[in-house]
């Protein structure tokens, strides 16, 4: 039986990718953010997960407005990051796990979700930056990827409850997979930020702290706001917290926070990194 060992939640700002490309991890501006990954590296070195199931949003690399899926699940043997318009393309490819992808697809459709399925898919900075942060260097990634894209670009977006329920369905699907794989769940993006309009630069420390406080013990607290409430509170791109809400749904065991790092600002963003452990519930 496969197990879900935990969750990694992190911002995915493109500037982080640029900082990695320029080796700025120790630069005073970047160091407080990159230092948040030390516990994550230690944990990953011990857990050695076989597969990462990543909830993220595409920003216009794989999907355009001609066909915009609310939920899309990758089922490719390999994924690549490509130039998104500013010339940075990370070279290390991501190995897929098509059999697990199709199992998840079968199970979530049985749970009455209707995702788009992608046998060919590019992944953008929202997958590539978290992988580069978690497994720095040049060695090939040994953790395989199952990407799950959530539309946070074109409204109407799925509701926070729907995203959370999708995460739960994905969690059940992984638990029912017969293989021996150890799985880590990722939720990427956020926290509060807004790139456009007269309110560009919007940051909401109170809302971010509310999310960070409740993510492990009471994720349903995050469902009290609807999608437009979150846009207002966290900013038009802060709505990427939907990816975190979905990822948290997949952690269905006993969940404990191992590490949390909140650092403002990175570029225009209130950045955060959270590591949660997921253990089987003990029936006392």
């Amino acid at each position: 039986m496969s197990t879900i060992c935990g969750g990694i939640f992190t911002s995915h700002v493109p500037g982080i990718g640029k900082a990695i490309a320029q080796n700025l991890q120790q630069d005073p501006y970047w160091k407080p953010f990159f230092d948040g990954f030390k516990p994550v590296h230690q944990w990953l070195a011990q857990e050695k997960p076989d597969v990462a199931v990543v909830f993220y949003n595409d920003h216009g690399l794989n999907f355009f407005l001609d066909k915009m899926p609310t939920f899309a699940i990758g089922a490719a043997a390999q994924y690549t990051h490509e130039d998104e318009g500013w010339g940075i393309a990370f070279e290390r490819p991501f190995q897929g796990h098509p059999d697990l992808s199709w199992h998840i697809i079968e199970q979530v459709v049985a749970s009455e979700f209707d995702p788009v399925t992608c046998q060919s898919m590019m992944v953008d900075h929202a997958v590539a930056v978290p992988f580069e942060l978690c497994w720095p260097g040049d060695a090939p990634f040994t953790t395989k990827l199952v990407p799950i894209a959530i539309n946070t670009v074109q409204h109407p977006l799925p509701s926070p409850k729907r995203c959370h329920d999708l995460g739960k369905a994905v969690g059940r699907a992984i638990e029912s997979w017969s293989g021996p794989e150890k799985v880590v769940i990722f939720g990427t993006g956020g926290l509060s930020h807004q790139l456009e309009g007269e309110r560009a630069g919007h940051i909401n420390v109170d809302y971010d702290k509310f999310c960070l406080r409740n993510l492990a013990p009471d994720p349903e607290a995050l469902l009290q706001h609807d999608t437009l409430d979150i846009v207002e509170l966290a900013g038009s791109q802060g709505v990427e917290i939907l990816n975190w809400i979905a990822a948290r749904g997949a952690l269905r065991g006993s969940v404990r926070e191992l590490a949390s790092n909140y650092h403002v600002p990175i570029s225009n963003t209130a950045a955060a990194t959270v590591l949660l452990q997921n253990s089987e519930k003990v029936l006392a």
Partner: protein
Amino acid sequence: MQTLSRQTTEGKRAIPGTLVFDGDAAQAGYALNAMCYSFNTLANRQAFAADEEGYMARFSLTEAQRDAVRQRDVLAMLAAGGNVYYLAKLAGIFGLNVQDLGALQTGMSVDAFKAALLEHAMTETRVANDGRLAA
């Protein structure tokens, strides 16, 4: 926590300083966003830089969209249906990052925009007492 905005009489939520990129915007902005999406390819970025008018014509931008691009007017691009995720690719051609975009949209200098972000500056770290996370 703050009081949230309500629906307007037109049935849309009016969030201060924020354009919600909905179906109306997606339809109005389609040509502009399609052009920006093409900039994922270096050759297309170069073709635009070499002949902006010709490239905009190829994608059938509306006159308002063309004018907004000519003026480098980000708020006008948004008003014409531009989505910031796609516009960011155009901004890159002009050598503008998201902080430059923020400054242009808020009427601040780039330094003032960065200073406004730094007003929120903070770092808050928690690490559990767990043997696996020993320093």
